[in-house]
């Protein structure tokens, strides 16, 4: 446990390869309608996304449990390089004003696409001070997304 935290302390990286073109995968990630079709933790949730794909502009992903609870993720785009790279801030609405940073790389590999997500904490003191509040929004909301009953 502590070994992991020391080895990759401030960010986590998850990747996956899909038998789909990089354009398709990028679109699935940036088209509000498509995003709404897959970005949900389980079938008990429905997702509605709105995307303003311009640097400095906002996206919102509202994830609604069948029991009625809504969890909303929102942030702004920092970098948009279609169809290869996306960088955006991430926070849970109603939580403390504490952004994290998500970078998504779309790497073509023949006919396939490797997607790599890097989700980062603040890596500079400046950032940390700017967002003195903490992570409790993420921490308290995430588990609820994995447990069904609302």
């Amino acid at each position, binding site marked *: 446990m502590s070994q992991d*935290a*020391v080895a990759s302390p401030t960010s986590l990286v998850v990747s996956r390869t899909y038998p789909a073109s990089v354009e398709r995968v990028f679109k*699935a990630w940036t088209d509000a309608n*498509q995003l709404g079709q897959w970005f949900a933790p389980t079938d008990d949730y429905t997702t509605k996304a709105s995307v303003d794909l311009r640097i400095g502009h906002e996206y919102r992903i509202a994830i609604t449990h069948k029991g009625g609870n809504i969890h909303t993720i929102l942030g702004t785009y920092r970098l948009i390089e279609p169809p290869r790279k996306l960088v955006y801030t991430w926070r849970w609405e109603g939580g403390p004003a504490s952004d994290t940073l998500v970078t998504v790389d779309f790497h073509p590999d023949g006919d396939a696409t490797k997607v790599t997500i890097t989700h980062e904490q603040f890596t500079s003191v400046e950032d940390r001070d700017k967002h003195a509040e903490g*992570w409790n929004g993420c921490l308290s909301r995430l588990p609820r997304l994995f447990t069904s009953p609302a």
Partner: protein
Amino acid sequence: MVKYSANLDATFSALSDPTRRTILTTLQRGHASVTELARPHDISMPAILKHLHVLEQAGLIEQKKTGRVRMCRLTVAPLRQAADWLSLYRAFWETQLDNLGRFLEQTDPQKIKKQENKACRKMPSHPPRR
């Protein structure tokens, strides 16, 4: 909860420096003196002391003076919180990537085409039963 969050911020900030991570890795093997911790690093003693101070402020280590030797040891709780954050989000993203895989498969234009062709070819020999 706020305290917990502030702790986590301090933890991640302290962990964002490679020298401090090396110090923590060394301390995972057990107690060590400041001199021992400084040895692998090509930096001054005041700089090492400053790093130790940051780690101590973040609650990641404890320092204790025994005679003229200052000993350090690891405090595990904050690292556990950091690891919890990481593992929660790892699980979250793994799930999302599974979902994306299913979505891409269901909406694969080539597969959809193939299935349509198959359905057309099959129809005469296997008419749907009513």
